[in-house]
């Protein structure tokens, strides 16, 4: 998942360079940490700690995990833009793949365990129930992004096209947040909190994007007028 962490060593301390620190522990740490909730979920299911309705609880938790990790992956780039840190984008891909993992688990639990893989129910749910439709669409988008998350895919698509494709992650996150809001019976505080975080992250990207464009345009006019 994280190709750049293959080598466990790091540069000798005596060598001072402008290169970012290797942080060989970061990628594996994030992946292992991201898998902990999966292990705990399995343990909770086994030990009965999921309560009276374990199917519903596991569906809710896996869905929330997917959304939280997806938002964390979207936090990476704004975090670098604001702070200048270089480590957040290095765990972005791992977070994105973890988010897809939990989203897929969430969907499989819903269709396979909750509804016993009854095709009629699945088709009806996806077509007739808007909150399922948007949730399903979000998982499909994340699946496509996961499939094209390799270096080979970047090469095949070309960076610009690949980047344009991967901007769909914001659509997936928006649909996921909407899915969370729509499935809630009444207490909207938690889903709206996550939707708000997403809105802030998106706003930051738009703000920085516009600023960059303006800066570039300014440079363009400057060179033309000279």
């Amino acid at each position: 998942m994280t190709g750049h962490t293959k080598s466990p060593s790091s540069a000798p301390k005596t060598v001072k360079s402008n290169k970012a620190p290797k942080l060989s522990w970061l990628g594996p740490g994030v992946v292992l940490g991201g898998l902990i909730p999966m292990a705990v979920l399995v343990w909770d299911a086994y030990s009965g700690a999921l309560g009276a309705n374990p199917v519903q609880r596991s569906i809710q938790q896996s869905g929330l995990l997917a959304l939280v990790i997806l938002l964390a992956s979207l936090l990476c780039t704004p975090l670098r833009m604001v702070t200048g840190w270089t480590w957040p984008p290095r765990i972005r891909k791992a977070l994105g793949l973890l988010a897809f993992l939990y989203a897929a688990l969430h969907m499989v639990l819903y269709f396979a365990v909750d509804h016993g893989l009854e095709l009629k129910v699945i088709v009806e749910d996806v077509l007739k129930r808007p909150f399922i439709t948007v949730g399903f669409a979000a998982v499909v988008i994340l699946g496509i992004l996961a499939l094209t998350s390799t270096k080979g895919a970047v090469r095949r698509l070309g960076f610009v096209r690949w980047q344009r494709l991967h901007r769909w992650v914001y659509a997936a996150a928006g649909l996921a947040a909407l899915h969370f809001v729509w499935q809630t019976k009444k207490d909207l505080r938690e889903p709206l909190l996550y939707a708000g975080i997403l809105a802030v992250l998106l706003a930051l990207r738009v703000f920085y994007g516009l600023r960059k464009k303006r800066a570039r345009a300014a440079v363009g006019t400057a060179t033309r007028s000279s």
Partner: protein
Amino acid sequence: MSQMPPEESKSDLQTEPSRIVKPSESKPVGRREFIKNAALMTGTVVGVGGGLELLTRRASAAAPVAGSLIGSKRPLGPYDTTEAQTSYQNITTYNNFYEFGTDKAEPAQRAGTLKTRPWTVLLDGEVKKPQRIDIDTLQSWFPLEDRVYRMRCVEGWSMVIPWFGFPLAALVRRMNPTGKAKYIQFTALNDPKQMPGQLDGVLEWPYVEGLRLDEALHPLAFLAVGIQGRVLPNQNGAPLRLVVPWKYGFKGIKSIVRITLTEKMPATTWALSSPGEYGFYANVNPKVDHPRWSQATERRIGELSRRPTLPFNGYAREVASLYSGMDLRRNF
């Protein structure tokens, strides 16, 4: 390619140089370096894993202490179901009681603040003589009995609960309704000090529910003061709650402080909060979906797969005649 923002390209390509393994790096890593990296990685694992757990895991409530015994078992009666009963643990730890929070485990965890004695119930409205009555006196008016009922929540799960209490009809008759009484309205306690969930403003408080008078007089309609012959746990609506087994669970108002007979249909809490989703009648009906989810099936708590939901929650033979000629799709 000219569109490519320089920052983006850096972030995606900056890791490339580090992949080139220099000869110096292929040497065994120093012990200190190794320990430091292991510690940092462990910290990351714990931080990421712990943070995610903190944000997404909800502990289920621990097994509550069973209340004191107030009645004894009797043979099943004509209104009891012989289906397997839901465990006491599940009945008392998986509750919708928004006065104590919207999570199912919260009522069991937080309802300790509710004081159920002393407790009075105001009986008023279209009655010959309004009165405020102590709960223990009220309870002593009627012989208490078991009722094993199915309970179907509007969210798509169900239980089989051995209630303990008395028929609502007995109380309505005792209240001496005037000729104008057409409906019955129930009001729950409104006291954020005892019910901390009321501070959240998720619903309008107090919680209000109601029935048509003929529904209230039906022998299935029940007021519970216990479960399994034991005093009702706070999280289940102590000291007095309504049980209407052919309607969705939200009709079963908990911790009742006032019962009023009225001429007009009472404005009930969930119907006020989302009129398109919850109606006054709220009869269990597999053919009328909730606008956002299907009501065709339900999960019986304790079972893995779903089962079909029955019209009037399986009590159609007893109660369907109450609604003859009514469009149940409109009067949901």
